């Protein structure tokens, strides 16, 4: 097989950071090639260089053994390199079809041919086994659907090399499988695919070869079938990751938060749950089951149609995030760039904003205290950054996620709600975050975790409730966790309403 792509001796520095140091990458024609490494290892940077979004300081790129210059995204596309970035870069106010045809609207006499782009878009989506309406506004779609649109947009060009930077981080299992089917289809057409993921099982099920990066340097390149998961993780982090789910069962106390008969628009119907001091409550279900809306409504971030909430036995009418935060409820949203962080702010300013009133003395923000708080967070979360003054937009995806988590970890609320907490976090750091969540519960915080990853949910929860199409379809105690039962409940096929009596309320 010919080498479709060779990158040789690629180096790239940012102020205070060596992002890439003399890295090689070779991808064969029709190969699915994984790039793995810890958060901040340089994976996205390498891909941004290949796709013309960043310039390398040193190194060379050969396509079919011909040296090429890639100075812009347009040049990359002309060379047959298509990219789906970690943050999708879609225009949320335009429709699906318009996004897919961005830059190359087919038209007559300067007018866009709406029929043609709608037909073309629905065909492109149909090939990917997706039923998204071409006329939908992208901003109204779920993250998973947006992902599909971003891929369809790239595939509409004549692509020889497809770059997918963490495409599955916001996809459900089934959606990921759809994506893998599409990847294999493209592979059979001779397209080379570069695939970045922090999910080891995906690396082994879909890729042919792996390149491992660590701290901006090349660790090595292997055929996937030469490796097992243990060896791969070892290459990645350079040490043993022993315990993935360091769950310590804490003493579970009284009910802290109880939500009764919550309904939200058409998305959540009459769901009741409670969470106790020291308990980790998992909320499972498929993407789109209404889990995010449920927790957001408890946090006051999206309006409830009906339902009552009580905190430590007292009824409380939470109508805004401000009320929730003042009452001691914190929420880590799933979409870090849109809802979790101010990417134009530094790490320090993001952390300070989360505790702004605690940091205020005599009308002025105490910068020293803010600096101390953020230095502590950077250490505790092991955020890879040259300084606390670094703008969050310059951090790698996983490190951004650590900042979102850190913003709330340092506040010790009564109830802490996580929506997909480990999205984009590397294997080693994940275990540390699970330990932190476990420690948090042990210190008496009531924790709620929404997650689409079943192993994660089963690994850290004391109890799991499952939603399907906005209704609660199951509740499981840790002693009775069963992946099959939970999946059945998530797909709405479980026979019984609730395998166990609900936790007593109040």
């Amino acid at each position: 097989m010919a080498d479709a792509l060779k990158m040789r001796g690629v180096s790239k520095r940012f102020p205070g950071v060596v992002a890439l140091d003399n890295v090689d990458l070779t991808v064969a024609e029709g190969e699915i090639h994984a790039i793995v490494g810890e958060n901040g290892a340089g994976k996205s940077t390498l891909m941004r260089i290949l796709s013309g979004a960043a310039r390398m300081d040193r190194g060379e790129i050969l396509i079919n053994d011909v040296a090429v210059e890639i100075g812009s995204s347009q040049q990359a596309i002309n060379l047959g390199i298509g990219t789906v970035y970690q943050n999708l870069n879609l225009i949320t106010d335009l429709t699906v079809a318009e996004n897919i045809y961005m830059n190359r609207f087919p038209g007559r006499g300067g007018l866009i041919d709406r029929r043609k782009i709608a037909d073309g878009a629905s065909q492109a989506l149909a090939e990917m086994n997706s039923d998204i309406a071409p006329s939908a506004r992208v901003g109204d779609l779920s993250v998973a659907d947006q992902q599909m649109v971003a891929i369809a947009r790239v595939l509409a060009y004549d692509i020889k090399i497809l770059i997918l930077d963490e495409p599955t981080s916001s996809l459900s299992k089934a959606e990921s499988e759809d994506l893998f089917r599409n990847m294999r289809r493209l592979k059979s057409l001779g397209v080379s695919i570069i695939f970045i993921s922090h999910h080891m099982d995906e690396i082994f099920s879909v890729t042919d070869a792996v390149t491992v990066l660590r701290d901006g340097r090349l660790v090595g390149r292997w055929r996937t079938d030469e490796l097992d998961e243990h060896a791969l993780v070892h290459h990645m982090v350079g040490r043993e990751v022993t315990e993935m789910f360091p769950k310590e069962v804490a003493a579970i106390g009284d009910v802290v938060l109880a939500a009764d008969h919550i309904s939200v628009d058409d998305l959540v119907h009459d769901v009741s749950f409670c969470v106790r001091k020291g308990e980790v409550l998992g909320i499972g279900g498929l993407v789109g089951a209404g889990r995010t809306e449920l927790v957001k409504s408890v946090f006051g971030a999206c309006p409830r149609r009906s339902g009552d909430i009580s905190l430590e036995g007292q009824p409380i009418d939470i109508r805004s995030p401000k009320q929730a935060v003042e009452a001691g409820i914190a929420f880590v949203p799933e979409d870090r760039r849109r809802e979790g962080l101010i990417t134009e702010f530094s790490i320090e300013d993001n952390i300070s904003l989360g505790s702004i009133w605690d940091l205020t003395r005599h009308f002025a923000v105490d910068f020293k205290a803010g600096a101390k708080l953020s230095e502590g967070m950077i250490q505790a979360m092991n955020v890879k950054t040259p300084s606390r003054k670094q703008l969050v937009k310059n951090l790698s995806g996983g490190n951004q996620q650590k900042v979102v988590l850190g913003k709330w970890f340092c506040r010790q609320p009564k109830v802490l709600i996580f929506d997909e907490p480990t999205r984009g976090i590397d294997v080693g750091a994940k275990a540390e975050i699970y330990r932190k969540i476990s420690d948090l519960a042990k210190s008496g915080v009531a924790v709620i975790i929404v997650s689409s990853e079943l192993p994660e949910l089963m690994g850290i929860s004391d109890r799991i409730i499952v939603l399907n199409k906005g209704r609660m379809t199951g509740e499981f105690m840790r002693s009775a966790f069963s992946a099959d039962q939970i999946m059945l409940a998530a797909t709405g096929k479980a026979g019984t309403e609730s395998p166990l009596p609900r936790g007593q309320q109040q």
Partner: protein
Amino acid sequence: MKFATGNQPVNSGVGSAPSVNLLPLNKLRGMGSLIALILIMVVFAVSSPAFLQIQNLMNIIVQVAVIAVIAAGAMFIILTGGIDLSVGGVLALAGVLSASAVRATDSATLGIIVCLGTAVLFGLLAGLLVTYGRIPPFVCTLGTMSIARGIAFVYSGGIPISGFPDAFRFAGAGEVAGIPMMVIIPIVIYVILYFVLVRTPFGKIVYAIGSNEEATRLTGIDTLKYKLIVYSLAGLLTGIGALLYVGRINSGHPGSGIGYELNAIAAVVIGGTSLSGGRGSIIGTVIGALIMGVISNGLNLMNIDPYFQSIVLGTVIVFAVMIDQHSQK
């Protein structure tokens, strides 16, 4: 609590963080405009000997005082991602109503209250419409501009109301120790606002709202409340601008302040503030206002036709913003 594993000594460099700089140079965007201001001043100093005299420099500040004060409010609104087109109309209305109140009662205090009160009420109104009414700021303040100016004309019958007691004119025409109040007031205001923007939680929140309103809201901050405060504050500053204006020309005129909204926005933008919100510095806005004042003053000294001045000013706006955009990269 500490992670036992995963230390990454290679690139992490935690702890080598620079110390807090008191003058946040990274926030001092608008370097392009500072360079432009210096260049322009050098050109005028060379071509006109009168330019650098203290008296003339003070004149420049007096000439830009009203716009500078209004621009400070416009800047807060722009930082939150909004815009305010109503300042000219509100300035006229506040001027007319307070002039009429002073004429009727001879009370400077009442005049000041009416002047500031009118402007704050209009700011509050715009704020309510933008936040709870969910009307885009551009449309909303286009409406309130027209309403305010309309009331000013209806109320006054189109006739200026002139002749006030000295106490009412003090802000616009008074002096302390030989320094005009028109110089002192803007400086005091800018010093206070600098502190507010750089040091207080309110300032941080203003930037946060402009950068990512939803993330700010989910942090537990009542973003609508702060936007309301920002629009009201801008109203107050417009009111102070009106007080200076009316005092200086000794007349409340329903046709006054035409085009001030654009001049204020121009000062903000020349100063490097991003029209999409979240980025900008108060020092930049001062420089922006000064550039506008220096240009018209210098060209006046050189006896250049006012229409030609407007061409020069427009060119400077475009260039200052361009230099700023490029120096950013």
